[in-house]
């Protein structure tokens, strides 16, 4: 089965080609959607087969590399088109193909009747292929194909409604910001490759070979430079500070896109990349700290913005940024398995939330359309009380919200709690740990608050929708609700494969399967970590129980505040806003980060470009050129008068010349 790994990206590629080339002629939405969905579902089946086989193998035999064909071979540089299978990439392909299949299915319903239906599915398939290349790539360059490929697809899909200017802007912004990250990725790649080659004579970009040679790398120093560069790449792709502003704008794309790309898969690529190269990252304590701090900062920062947004998708977008911050916090604290675990659970509940919001928007849109109203279908202030008309959507949404808020028993609790515990108890950051934990905990509180605010505003209370539209509200069709139900189910129970040890012990020593599964991947990293950190976290069961309880309480506090503000006492938000107008304005306007970037980068670049063009290129460079030409022309103008064009002038000169020459020879 391992040998057939190439089938996984191949199916979506075929789907992309068929839909892209012939989709316009097929026209039948069922066929197009069917092809797209089957393509990714085929990949899912192959992935399942691979997962089965991997489970049946012993942990030592779980790494497998499949070389398809040599790609770039040049001198000592070798990059093959090759795929790597190990427990980590299998987790990722399962998530990508699994969630991807559901979202494809959902899209058939959601995108029904849209212009360019085939275009959407071909892009979606292309995205899946790129994402699978990213996670399967056995060297950095194949990963980079996927890395940029998903950026491209994200560009295409955000700009799907290209006739809207905002969509085009958002798409461009996303791509350019990703490009900034890619720049970091490339420089990091170069640094690592060059250093290993120059100093250790290991010329490679293959992950497994680097892993073997990782003991040659120093602690800190050049590794810090390289990993920081990689981390810049990760911030770009995973929307962390400072490159996070594209993600909320990316909500211009259709909702399934937001669910697939901007929640479940693409944005987690940065986390995956750090996990993939954990053995390099861990060698630089400074980078680890930077990652942890950036992660924590992003988590709290995005969470604050999320509390004040009214667009249902924007709230979810900021929530995604915030949750990604949690993942980076995990990575930065050396809890790689926990980060990946949260990645997975997040993929379930956030995909479910996005799809749920999509279902709501779909319904709202339909209703508003039939009521001939121009109200914004995505504005939560126009919703309310939807739980009666959309029960399935409501239940799955609620389950996912509970999961993300961190209520015990649901998947989010296990993963988030693990991260917070690791942030508190990891051996790497010393006194910083308590700060990291504190920030994480507050961010968790905010998460619970804004998510329940979302639920309360959307599904509870009075229906604020246009009265005419009210009657048109109805539950979405089955093709939309089935993925919701599956994802909702996974959001609820998906956490049980990574039961914290503490809880597992209660139930007769159930191990943390997920951690166990990934252990061989991160073993080496942990080993390196112990070189400079105290070996093993201080294991204090009481403390861990305490913190666990603490995080539950924090989540409940957030929910309670939301309940108070949006159910019980509806005047509170208004009061709050009028009490702190400046704060509200700042939060509502996303802390003016976009404006800051415009001021710092975009506008200076534009005016510099304009100056260089009109001021320098035309005036100075071309001025010199034309100046030289003018001088020559002026000089030759003096001689020009000898050439009058009159025959007799020439005849005079000729005759005089002949006479002079002959005279000279005769009379000399």
């Amino acid at each position, binding site marked *: 089965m391992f040998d057939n790994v190439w089938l996984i990206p191949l199916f979506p590629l075929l789907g992309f080609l068929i839909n892209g080339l012939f989709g316009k002629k097929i026209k039948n939405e069922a066929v197009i959607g069917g092809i797209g969905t089957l393509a990714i579902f085929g990949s899912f089946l192959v992935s399942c087969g691979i997962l089965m086989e991997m489970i049946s193998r012993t942990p030592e035999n779980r790494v497998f590399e499949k070389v398809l064909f040599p790609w770039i071979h040049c001198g000592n540089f070798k990059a093959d088109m090759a795929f790597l299978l190990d427990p980590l990439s299998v987790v990722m392909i399962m998530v990508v193909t699994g969630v991807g299949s559901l979202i494809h299915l959902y899209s058939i319903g959601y995108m029904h009747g849209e212009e360019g239906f085939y275009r959407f599915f071909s892009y979606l398939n292309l995205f899946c292929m790129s994402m699978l290349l990213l996670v399967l790539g056995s060297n950095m360059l194949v990963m980079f194909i996927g890395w940029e490929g998903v950026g491209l697809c994200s560009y295409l899909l955000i700009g799907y409604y290209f006739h809207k200017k905002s969509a085009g802007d958002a798409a461009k912004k996303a791509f350019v910001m990703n490009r900034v990250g890619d720049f970091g990725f490339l420089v990091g790649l170069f640094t690592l490759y060059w250093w290993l080659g120059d100093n250790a004579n290991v010329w490679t970009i293959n992950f497994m070979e680097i892993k073997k040679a990782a003991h040659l790398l120093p602690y800190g120093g050049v590794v810090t430079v390289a990993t920081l560069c990689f981390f810049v790449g990760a911030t770009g792709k995973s929307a962390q500070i400072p490159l996070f502003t594209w993600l909320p704008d990316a909500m211009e794309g259709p909702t399934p896109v937001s669910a697939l790309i901007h929640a479940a898969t693409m944005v987690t690529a940065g986390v995956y990349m750090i996990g993939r190269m954990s053995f390099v990252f861990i060698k630089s304590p400074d980078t680890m700290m930077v990652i942890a701090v950036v992660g924590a900062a992003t988590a709290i920062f995005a969470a604050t913005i999320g509390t004040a947004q009214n667009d249902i998708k924007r709230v979810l977008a900021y929530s995604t940024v915030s949750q990604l911050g949690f993942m980076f916090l995990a990575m930065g604290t050396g809890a790689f398995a926990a980060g990946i675990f949260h990645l997975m659970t997040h993929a379930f509940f956030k995909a479910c939330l996005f799809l749920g919001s999509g279902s709501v928007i779909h319904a709202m849109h339909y209703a508003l359309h039939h009521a001939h109203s121009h109200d914004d279908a995505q504005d939560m202030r126009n919703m309310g009380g939807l739980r009666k008309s959309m029960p399935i959507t409501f239940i799955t949404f609620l389950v996912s919200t509970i999961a993300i808020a961190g209520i015990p028993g649901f998947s989010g609790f296990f993963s988030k709690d693990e991260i917070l515990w690791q942030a508190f108890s990891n051996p790497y950051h010393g006194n910083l740990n308590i700060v990291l934990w504190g920030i994480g905990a507050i961010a968790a509180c905010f998460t619970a608050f804004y998510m329940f605010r979302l639920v309360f505003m959307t599904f509870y209370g009075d229906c604020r929708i246009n009265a005419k539209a009210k009657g048109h509200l109805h539950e979405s069709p089955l093709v939309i609700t089935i993925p919701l139900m599956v994802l909702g189910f996974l959001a609820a129970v998906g956490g049980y494969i990574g039961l914290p040890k503490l809880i597992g012990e209660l139930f007769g020593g159930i191990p943390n399967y997920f951690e166990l599964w990934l252990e061989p991947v991160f073993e080496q990293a942990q080993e390196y970590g112990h070189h400079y950190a105290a070996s093993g976290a201080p294991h204090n069961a009481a403390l861990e129980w305490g913190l666990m309880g603490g995080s539950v309480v924090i989540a409940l506090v957030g929910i309670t505040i939301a309940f108070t503000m949006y159910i019980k006492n509806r005047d509170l938000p208004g009061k709050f806003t009028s009490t702190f107008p400046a704060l509200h304005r700042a939060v509502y306007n996303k802390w003016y980060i976009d404006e800051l970037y415009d001021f710092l980068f975009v506008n200076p670049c534009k005016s510099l470009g304009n100056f260089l063009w009109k001021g320098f290129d035309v005036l100075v460079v071309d001025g010199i050129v034309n100046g030289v030409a003018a001088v020559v022309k002026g000089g030759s103008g003096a001689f020009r008068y000898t050439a009058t064009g009159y025959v*007799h002038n020439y005849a005079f000169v000729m005759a005089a010349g002949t006479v002079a020459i002959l005279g000279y020879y005769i009379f000399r």
Partner: protein
Amino acid sequence: MPEILFFSLVAGVAIISSILVVAMRNPINCALSLIMSFFCMATLYVMLDAPFMAATQVIVYAGAIMVLIVFVIMLLNMRTETSKNYVHGVLVGCIVAVLTLFVISGFLTKSPLTGATGSMTPELITKVGHTELIGRAMFSQFLLPFEITSILLLVAIVGSVILAKRKL
């Protein structure tokens, strides 16, 4: 002596008529003066024992070419030129012309004036006849150039027809 006297007379007429060619305002007068000059040339050719050349001179130059020129002058309907359109750069022109003459005379005095001699004596000319001599030379030794000349004339005919016809 009478030869010199006759030469002087003919040369004088030639020079005067040439000056008239340059000086007359009406192109027709110029042309007529030129014909006069050509006839003087023909006379000189006879004096130089070249009667065939003299005949050719009269027929081709004074006859054909000048008729052509006069015809063109008539065709273009040219009148006497006003003083403004008459001449320009007289002084410079005269200086150049005088210098030319000066150079030629210098050449005459300095040069030995010799060249490849041949066997064509006046006696031979009277005996055989000038025309025959020319004919023999032309159609034996200079046959190829002669034929090429005919091509030149053909080209000239074609050229002039095209040039004159294009805008008609």
